[in-house]
Structures are given as structure tokens and as C-alpha cells.
């Protein structure tokens, strides 16, 4: 699948934003701290920016409002609806924190739950597509949720080290979530690599009874919407390299940095904040790479017709 920047940015940012919102909604940071207020703004900005970025991908963004109508059947619609609905408790909680310096407990909890629901909806957009073997697994929402939580915890830890609250629990949560996320992600990737494709050129053409089927000539010589959208291919060796980079930056580096910070006493302060910031930046870059691979490595069934 084509790794469209707008979508990669969208899933990465919104995942991170919602994860952070979960941490904030749960009240894991001190609502009175300036850093927490900034964290709220950052979380909402990430969510909003992500959503905006996703509309860049639309052919007719001016009609985007129509996407709220089909929540009964469409995960994309559900995601849209959830995103809007989630904004209500999140805004309330953020208001309470930023303006009033207090934690709004009930809206916070509701917001946290809805944030996870929204992330789940996003993940289900992909996981529901039977046409893309790699995505069509329960591991996909699991990964999205865990990465969202992990990212949120990493970000929350950063704000904690900036003076937003307890700098012990959050890094620990982050470490656990990161480990969980990457373990599940590894399983996801193994699923991608190990499972035989659901559809093959033989089943796509129904000609398997005659023999082995291979594309001879494309219908049109040049690329088209479908081949550009679904025909993206990444060489195996590049994928392997990127996977290591993703894991290193997205998992190992933050893990090590937080472990060091914890070992150093888990105290907030400019130095610790810098290190935690590094961990966050590394994580985000790692997740961007992970997302890029999420698309680039996924093969669409339609490529059975295009020799891909």
C-alpha cells in the first residue's frame, strides 16, 4: 500500500495525541502544573493536527462533514464520529486543567475511554479490510492501542520530567507499554510474513485449475490510481533495515533512556526533561517509520491482477 504522508502523519499524531489524552484524562499528571497544561494543548494539537492532515488525503475535503453519517457500518465514519464525540470530554477536562488548574475526574475518565475507542476505530479501518492480509488481524487494533498508550506514556513522562507530576510511575508505564506494543507488533509482523496470502493470482483469476498464473501484460502500460495506491512495493532488505530503525528509535531508545532516568532517580528537571524529550522525539520518529512500514509492507489483493 502507498505510504501516504498525510495518513502516516495522521495515525502517528492522533495516536500519540489520544495516548497522551488518556494519561491526562486518567489524571496521571498534576493538573496544576504548567507542563500539564502544555501537555493538554499538545495532546489536542496532535489530535487536531492529525485529523486535519487526514483530510488532506480527501478528494473533496469540503464535504468531509458527510463522513459522520455512516457510523452504523463504516469504521471510518465511526472514527470521525468518535473523534468529534471524544472532543467534548477532552475539551472539558482540558478546560478544567488549563483554565481552572484542576482535574475533572468524570470527563477525564470518559475522555480517556473515548480516546481509546477512537484509536480503536482508526485501527479498525485497516483491520476490517479483508483485501489487505497484513492488516486484517486483531493484532492491528492491539498494536494501534498499545502504540497509542505507549506513545502517550512516553509523552506524558516527558511532561512529568518537565515538572508535570510524578516522574516515576509514568516512565514505568511507558516502559511496560512500549515493551507490550513492540512484542505485539512483532507478532503482527510475523503474521504478515508467515501467513500465506488469502488471495493469489490463481484465485483472483479463477485460472488455478489450468496452472500457475503470472501477469503477462498490464491493462495499461503506465501507472494508474490503483497501482499507485495499492502497488507500492518495498524491497525486503530495505524493509528489514527500516524495521530495525523503527524498533530501535520507537522502542529501544526510549526504553533505555527512561531506564537511565529511572536509575538516576526519576527526578524532574531540565536535564531529565531533555533526555525524556529525546526519548519522545526518538519514539515519534520510530513510530513514523513503523507506520510507513505498516503501509509499505502491506500487500493489497488487487495486486494479484497487476503482477505485484
Amino acid at each position, binding site marked *: 500500500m502507498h505510504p501516504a504522508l498525510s495518513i502516516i502523519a495522521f495515525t502517528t499524531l492522533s495516536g500519540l495525541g489520544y495516548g497522551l489524552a488518556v494519561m491526562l484524562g486518567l489524571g496521571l499528571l498534576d493538573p496544576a502544573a504548567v507542563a500539564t497544561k502544555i501537555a493538554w494543548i499538545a495532546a489536542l494539537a496532535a489530535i487536531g493536527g492529525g485529523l486535519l492532515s487526514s483530510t488532506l488525503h480527501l478528494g473533496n475535503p469540503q464535504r468531509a462533514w458527510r463522513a459522520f453519517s455512516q457510523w452504523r457500518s463504516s469504521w471510518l465514519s465511526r472514527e470521525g464520529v468518535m473523534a468529534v464525540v471524544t472532543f467534548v470530554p477532552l475539551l472539558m477536562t482540558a478546560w478544567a486543567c488549563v483554565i481552572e488548574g484542576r482535574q475533572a475526574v468524570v470527563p477525564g475518565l470518559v475522555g480517556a475511554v473515548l480516546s481509546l475507542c477512537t484509536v480503536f476505530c482508526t485501527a479498525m479501518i485497516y483491520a476490517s479490510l479483508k483485501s489487505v492480509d497484513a492488516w486484517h488481524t486483531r493484532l492491528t487494533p492491539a498494536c494501534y492501542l498499545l502504540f497509542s498508550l505507549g506513545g502517550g506514556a512516553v509523552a506524558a513522562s516527558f511532561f512529568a520530567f518537565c515538572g508535570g507530576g510524578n516522574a516515576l510511575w509514568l516512565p514505568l508505564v511507558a516502559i511496560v507499554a512500549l515493551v507490550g506494543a513492540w512484542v505485539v507488533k512483532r507478532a503482527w509482523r510475523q503474521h504478515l510474513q508467515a501467513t500465506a496470502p488469502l488471495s493469489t493470482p490463481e484465485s483472483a483469476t479463477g485460472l488455478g485449475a489450468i496452472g500457475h498464473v503470472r501477469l*503477462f501484460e498490464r*491493462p*495499461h*502500460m*503506465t501507472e494508474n490510481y490503483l497501482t499507485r495506491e495499492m502497488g507500492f512495493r518495498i524491497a525486503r532488505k530495505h524493509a528489514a533495515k527500516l524495521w530495525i530503525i523503527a524498533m530501535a528509535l520507537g522502542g529501544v531508545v526510549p526504553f533505555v533512556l527512561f531506564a537511565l532516568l529511572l536509575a538516576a532517580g526519576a527526578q524532574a528537571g531540565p536535564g531529565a526533561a531533555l533526555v525524556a524529550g529525546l526519548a519522545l522525539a526518538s519514539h515519534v520518529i520510530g513510530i513514523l517509520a513503523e507506520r510507513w512500514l505498516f503501509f509499505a509492507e502491506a500487500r493489497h489483493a488487487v495486486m494479484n491482477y497487476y503482477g505485484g
Partner: protein
Amino acid sequence: MSPRERVALSEPVGDEVCKTTCYMCACRCGINVHIKDGKIRYIEGNRDHPVNKGVLCAKGSAGIMQHYAPARLRAPLKRVGPRGSGEFQEISWDEALGIATEWLGEVRHRDPKKLAFFTGRDQSQSLTGFWAQQYGTPNYAAHGGFCSVNMAAAGIMTIGGAFWEFGAPDWDRTKLFVMFGVAEDHDSNPIKIGISKLKQRGARFVSVNPIRTGYSAVADNWIGIRPGTDGLLILSVVHELLKARKIDVDYLVRYSNAPWLVIDAPGTPEHGLFARDGEGRPLVWETVTERAVPTGTRGARAALSGRFELPDGRFAVPSFQLLAEKYLDPKYAPEAVAVESGVAAETIRGLAAEIARVAFEEEIFVDQPWTDVNGQRHQGYVGRPVSFHAMRGLSAHSNGFQTTRALHMLQVLIGAIDCPGGFRFEPPYPKPLTAHPTPHGRAEHFGSDKPLAGPHLGFPRGPEDLLVGEAGQPARIDKAFSWDAPIAAHGMMHMVIANAHAGDPYPIDVLFMYMANMAWNSSMNTAGTIKMLEDKDPATGEYRIPKIIYSDAYASEMVAYADLVLPDTTYLERYDCISLLDRPITEPDAVQDAIRWPVLEPDRDVRAFQSVLIDLGGRLKLPGFADGMGEPLYKDYADYLVRHERRPGIGPLAGFRGSQGDRAGRGAANAEQLQRYIDNGSFFSAHIPLEAQFFKHANQAYQDFAVRMGFFDMPQPVTFQLYQEVLQKFRLSAQGLRDPVAPDTHRQRILEAFDPLPDWYRPFGEALVDRSDYPHHAITQRPMAMYHSWGSMNAWLRQIHTKNPLYVPGPICDELGLKDGDWAWVISHHGRIKVEVARMEAVNTSTLWTWNAVGKRAGAWALDKDAPEAKKGFLMNHLIAELLPPREDGMRWSNSDPVTGQAAWYDLRVRIEKAGAGEAVSEPQFSPLVQPEPEPHPMELRYGQEWAR
């Protein structure tokens, strides 16, 4: 609101429907052009049209993009920069016609042979040929010589008609259909309709073709023959049939020259000719009375074998005896030909057995009494439901004439010509050789300011009809009808530029061409041809071909080499005529012709070429185009179509003649004729009575019908010529036995190629190179969605074939380590090209191939310079030389069939080498052409957006 209600389900297509004839290729299907707001909304097949019955191919469906292509020429052009630079100046029609009249008038007066007038893909040959004859140059032909003259000539000389547009399989009744070397053919839609029909009926379809795409892909059996060896396969089938006695003896005796007596007197000028009586009638041996009697003698029972003494003491044998002896030779046994052809002996045997079984055990009978030309009444038509079709896979080889003869002979042997279920003639064919003219063009046939003494093209009856001078030198610029290519019935357009450049046999002044992309895909040795067009005589500084006039509708490669460009309209902006005098659209059951008419007005300063030619004829005061006072006879082509008469009562169009418009074939001119055509869907069709529909070659009712329609002035039945006497006459000349004797240089070649019985020899292009140096064949195929070079200016079609890879058989890929997308050099004795390769298994293992004419020169056709057609596409033509490699004596023959001069495109032998890392660009590349004032072309097309609902 439910979205369903927003869909407008019952919108009319457009404001009006214009029924005309498609010209995205030469198949000439009927089309309904729907016009909306003055623009084309939609083009569909005309259901009532006899050719396509409503269907329309990809090209036809892309007519919108052809009509509005930015590559259309906009005004007459005069060259101002050097040739090939593309520097032109737009001029007025007055100036353009003035220049043309001056150039042409001067040549006509001084030495008319200094004009070479050759036409390509047009269908106006009855006009252009007539014009050239009135002008008086001997140098005229259309493109048949590089196309499929082998097919036409062999068919006409054997059965009086050919597959090539003059016949069709009986799609509705045939039970076994065998197709040789066809990728697409002119009958594009009818063949597809037919194949599908017969397959859906459960008939068997066998395709003999090195490549298994298109038609071959749906064949029940595919014989992936090695190119150039079909003659062996066919003769091996003949061998098997003779051995098993599976021949239709009755049919042979009735309709062929099998019983005709051939004089057996070696060393005499009559050896191998037919024994004839005093009136020139061939003799047969009457077995009851044991004497020679003329053919057609009532009640005669002719022998097919034996050796008989003639009254004059010479001996003679029935030609069938020679035939049987020849093909029963074990060298034609399946095992013997399997190696050379690559076809397993079992397959050949199976093919022969199926042909025999279907012909004789599945015989069909059509209950329709009829009378033959001998007055004998028959209860009905006996059908042998085996049919064949063949095209350039056979004919584009230097042994194609003989191979095609062999295929026609096979059909006669099993009695399957023009019978139910077999191959059927399309009127005005069959036509015996004797009903065709002999060629004209010898010195005594032309002169200053006068018309040629007769038609340019025809069939020599023997060496005495050749167009050669005293010393045997060719009279025509293309050397057609010379000793080089004695039966070049369609001329040899592929040799014109090379010969004119070499001044061999003489230099010319004006080259006048129409609708032929000779600076690109229709020339062999394209790069060399470009140089010849650019080459100047250092002594005079003049171009070696001094003046070139060219008519095209689009900015093709050839336009850049013209000195004067006469821009034509598109096919929707002019009158055209698909005439019975030319290449007809008739069907076995009906006589048909058609027109095109301007359904849209040109929005540019262009004129229909035919009208321009008629205008020039008037200005030059050519007889037939100007009256005694020098006043033009015709206003334009439409006027000519209605009023011109070739013979009394016979004009370009056969339909709606007579003052009431109720006469078919012959009749007075009818001023309403064109409107009647338009009202009738732009075609005319007259059904052949059922009692005249089969065995036309010998059917009295058909012969009478043909006379009524004006095909002939008296009946012209055909006796199939299995043994071809004309060929033997050339052999006698080559043996020095008969006058005029052949020049020494040509004797060997004629002896080898002019066997009066169908024969096989290795194609020259293969025989003359070291086969181990060039181990593979390289051929091209027509893509169904492109017509030669026409499709690349078409925004829709070019997406289907934006570039062409070289398809390479799997085993060769494995041997060379070639993968899809790799680049390779392909090398022939003549040149080398760099191409992108793609693997293929369903192909003869020694055959590389590509789609024809997809490769383009950068800058042509109003495409961007980096268009894949130019950067990745390529022409096979760079590898094909117009001359063969030199023989021991240093002679270089034209790369053509030695009998007909047919261009031997498919004789090519090559080797392939993996190309080193380099730019992914095909080679050779040429400097990009500069477009003569191209229309600005859009970055995005949204055709029809204004009608979006």
C-alpha cells in the same frame, strides 16, 4: 432523498446521430456518431451494418480522441528549414496548390516518370490510380507491396481470389477453422465475431502462429511453428491427405486444372506448359475415347494420371500427376518436416486427420438446386466444412508467395473453396487471372503530357509482360514487374525511397506520398531511410530526392521530411468511398460498398486529400479531370463520386444508381446518390440470390449476377490453377529456352522460386546469414488496440500501448539471465537496437517479438519529448534491411519475395545480448522533431465534463 432518485436513467445520448463509416483502421465498420452541442458525445457500432453488426473495436471507440487529437495538422506547410528540422511556414491553399501544380506540371511535361506517386493506408486507390494514369507516370502504386501482396497474388493466381479482403471463412457453418499467421488483420471485427461464433457452436479452431496471444490465445489448438516454415507444414498435410486418399476427386476434376495436360518435353520452350488446342484451350485426356480434348468438352472423363501422346507427337501428363508425385515424396512426411518447422510429427498427423475427417465425414449439404457454368444442374451445395484463413504470418516472408499457394492448393484438394462451411469468395471475386489487366509502364506506355496507356498494376502472363527496357532494366522506380520481382502486382513501395536515393534505375524529381509514414514505421532500415531523405548531392547541393509532397492528417514522422505538406481532414470531416473498384467491404452473401461523409466541419485550414487531388487534376488539365476546354470536371470528391464513370454506368459507388436511385451496379449517375447512402447508414448492400451464393467460380447464376452488377462484361468462371503455368514460363526464360530470356544474374533465383507447383524454400533473410550467429527469429504483431502509428496521438489508446517491450521466450531469458525490465541488445546483420525485455512462455522458443509501430520518434505526434513511446518504445524496423546481405557474386537483392516483391518483414534473424548498466532508454534515439505549429496540448483531459450530471 434516496440517492437512487438522483440518477438520470433516461437521458438521450445526444442531439443527433450521424451514421458513417469508421476509419480508425481499414476494416470499415459502420458507426453511429452521436453529436451533442456540436461535439462528439459517443461513437458506437451500427447494428444494421453488415461488416460489424453493431460491435466496435477499441480503436473505433477511441474515435473521439482521434478526432480531437492535438497532433492534427492545421494548415498547408512549406518547409523553410532543412529537411527533418520541422521548420515550416504555414501557407494558404492557393499557394500550396500553386506550388504543387508547378512542380507536377513541369515533370509531366519533361519526363513524367520523374514523379513517383505512392499511397499508403488510404482507401482511395481507384481515384489515386486513375489520377496517376491520367497524369502519365509509370511510378504509381499503393502500399500492397509491403503489406500482403503475396497473399493477394498467390490467391488470385491459384483460385481467383484471396483471403486478403476478398474472401472469408463460412463462419456460420465451418466445423474446423485453421488460421495461419494472423494477429489482427483487416477484417478486425468480422474475424472476432466469427471466431466467437464458431467456438460457441463447438467448432474447432486451430491457430498456427509462433506467438500465442489474441486469436491464438483462444484457439483450441495452438501450433507454435517456427517462422517461415508453414509451407512445409502445409505440404506435409497435403502429403498425408494424398497418402490417405483424402481428396475430393470430383471437385478437382470439375473446378481445377488437375486434369489439364502438361507438356513433357524437356529442353523445349513448351516444356511444362499446358497442351492447348488451336484456339488456345487447354487439353485434358479423355479416358473413354483415349484422346486429348479441350477442357469443358461435355461428357469428357478426364484422366488425372498417366502419360499420353498428343496428336503432335509430344507427350503430356495431367498436372495432377506431377502434383501427386511431388508431394508424396517422403521429404514431406511429418517426421521429415518436424525438425525444420518445430512442429511435432504427431501434431501434423493429427491436423491432417482432423481436416480429412471433418471434410469428408462431416460433409454438409445445403438444399438449394443450382446450375454450373457447363449447364449441369446440381441438387444442392455439398459443403466440406473446413476453412482456413491466413495473413502476414505467411505472406511477409520471402517464401510467402509459394507458401500461400500451398495453402490455397490444400483447400482445393479437399474441395473446400466457396462451398458451405469452407472459404467463401466475396464479390467482385472470384476473378480469373485473365480478367486482370497486365501492368503498364514500359517506355512505350507513357510520354510527355499524356496519360499512361493502361493501368499501372496487374498480372503479367509471362516474362513478355514485364516492365523492363531493352537491356532488361526496370522501367519503374520500385522495380516492380522487373526481373527482380516479376509479379509485383501491388508495386513495391518499400523500395521507392532507397531506389530514388540511389538513382537506380533512375533519379526522380518529385516524390508524392499520401497517408504513409515512410520516414518511420513503414520503411525497412528506418535510420537509413531518414538519411536518404536528408541526403544531398554534393555536386549540386540539391536533395537527392529533390521535392517531396506529402499528405497527412497528423504530425507524423514523415511530415518532417516533406517540402510541401497538404494537411488532410480527419475521417469524420470528409467524404470517402469504399468502392467495389478498390478494396471492397462485400460479404460472401452480399455485394456492398460504403461512404464516409463530413459529420463535422473542420475547424482548421485543412482539406480532404481526394478533393485536393481532383483539384490538382483540374489545374494540371489531366484528361478525366478537365474537359476539352481545360475546365475542371469536378467540384470536389463528392461530385466525382456521383458523376465519375469508369465504364458506362459504372462509377465509384454501386448503390442507388439510375435516375430513380433504384439501380444496383450499373446505372446512370444519380444526383441524390450520396444522400441515399447517408440515409441508408452510409452503405449499400445487395444480396446475392441463394442459387448464386456458392461455387461462384463455376456457378452460372452467380456469373450472370456478376455481369448484371457490372463486375465483368461477360461471365468469367475460374478454374483453380494448382499448377501455375505463368510461373513455368518464367522458369523457361530462366533456362534460356523461352523469349524473352532472363538475365544471367536472375536465372538461378527464378529457377528456385518459380516452381509451378507450390513449394518451400528457406526464407532468404534466414538462408543468407550464418544461422548460428543469428540464432533467433524476430517478428512483430499488430496490437488490436492500435493501428500502425496512428494510435499514439490518441490519449486513450496510448495508455494501452505507451511503450513496447521485446518479448523473449523463457528459455532464452534463463540462458542469458534476463528478467522483466532488463535491457538487451538485439542484433541483426544490419543493425542493433537496445530494448526492454519481458519474459514469455507461450511462444515459439526461437522467436522474439514485439508490438508493431508503437515506438515513436521523440517530438512527433504532438507528444512530449520524453514520451515513453520514444524513450522506451522501439521499432523492429531498424534491424530489417531493405536489401539482403550480399551473395557470393556481390549482388544484393531486395529483401522481398522473389516472385511478388512482397517485403519480407518476418524473415529477420537476430541474436540477443544482455545490455550493461546504462540509461534505461531504447536505442537508436534520434534528435527530437520540432512540431510544425502543434496545437497546445492540455495537462489534463476531462472530455465530456460539460455534460456531467
